């Protein structure tokens, strides 16, 4: 994940006119990169890319194959498939986070990207929530309730936990959308290294 405000978007399409149009739509709000085939898409991809717009039908390495190779690299990147027809197949099982049907509009493109960026942020927030709860549990272990009551840092921690908790609860309404639910789990799944032994 980049810290740049708008995020970094990689546009992948073999049709250069399409790429040019998307770039025009997006470059005021995001850092934009482009690729015209699967191989160069994979070469352009690194941890600073937040969202990939991936054309499904390209000569050479297909969109589906590129997607598989992106997922293998655990980059924590969200991927929207761009397709000419409504997908009649299971985009969740394939590993896409969302899809856009061509032709798309300026507004739809940006709304999709912003959704995917907020999803990454949400997954990040869930992890942060866990780490704050763990920190609180550790502090409670070592200190008496009386000591904690008088501790300003502990009060700050409690306030952050409460604020994050209500943000997460509000956003959880989105989970009834299956694509969003699964994409959130995927964002959790590929959040860097750290699988336990076993």
């Amino acid at each position, binding site marked *: 994940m980049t810290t740049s405000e708008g995020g970094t978007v990689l546009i992948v399409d073999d049709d250069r006119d399409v790429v040019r149009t998307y770039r025009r739509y997006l470059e005021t709000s995001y850092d934009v990169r482009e690729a015209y085939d699967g191989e160069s898409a994979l070469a352009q991809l690194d941890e600073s890319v937040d969202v990939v717009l991936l054309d499904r039908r390209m000569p050479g390495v297909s969109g589906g194959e590129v997607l598989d190779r992106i997922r293998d690299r655990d980059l924590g990147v969200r991927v929207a498939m761009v397709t000419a027809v409504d997908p009649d197949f299971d985009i*969740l*099982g394939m*590993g896409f986070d969302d899809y856009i049907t061509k032709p798309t509009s300026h507004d739809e493109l940006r709304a999709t990207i912003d959704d995917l960026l907020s999803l990454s942020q949400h*997954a990040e927030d*869930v*992890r942060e*929530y*866990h*780490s704050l*709860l*763990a920190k609180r*549990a*550790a502090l*409670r*272990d070592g200190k008496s309730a009386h000591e904690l009551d008088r501790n300003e840092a502990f009060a700050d921690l409690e306030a952050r936990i409460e604020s994050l908790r209500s943000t*997460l*609860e509000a956003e*959880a*309404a989105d*989970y*009834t959308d*299956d694509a969003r*639910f*699964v994409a*959130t*789990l*995927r964002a*959790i*799944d590929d*959040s860097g290294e*750290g*699988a*336990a032994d*076993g």
Partner: protein
Amino acid sequence: MAEGDARSEYPLGDALPIDVGAFDPGMNLLVSGPAMSGKRQVVFDLLAPAASTDPIVVMTTDDPAPRIHTEFEDRQSCVTPETFRIVDASGAPGDDDPTVHRVNSPADLTGMGVAFTEAVEGVGSPPRLRLGFVSISTLLQYVDAERAFSFLHVLSRRTSAAGYLGVYSLDPTTHEDRFVNVVTSIFDAVIELREEDGSREVRVRGLSGMAPEWTAFPY
């Protein structure tokens, strides 16, 4: 309200010796106890109390699907694909079964999520459903505490948002107290089991109007 009503409560029948008749829609319960304390039985009893017709989805990370099937047949549940599904991440091989959605490993959190959505769709995306998860302890053998917590948080909020009942099991004696404290915060109520002098007891924390006192709970 009538049985099957979308927003009505989830009766618990005689699954527990407590003074509570039903759980609110969207609640998530943790059944917590050491090995051999019968937590799995309590989870299953809460999913399939007598006379309930609620659809059931069971996610398992350890017991293979056939064993779970038997448990629900024993409870006179209707284990047809229209009302009953198992997400089996135990890794046990099995025959094709229309009620079973297989996931290679509990480490595949995305795969478990996809299988859950397929299972819910398979029972007709109903307005009421009881979800069981056995067990958090096994999940922790495959993913780190942060991922396990995040997964459980997202899954439990998914079922809450839909008005479903969620019931999860955990053996607190196999994890650090700190993890148990943190993961407990996900749940609305905790059903604790323990054994004292050879007899089993239960207490419930987090339900309003219920004093958290240990009560005899013979097997």
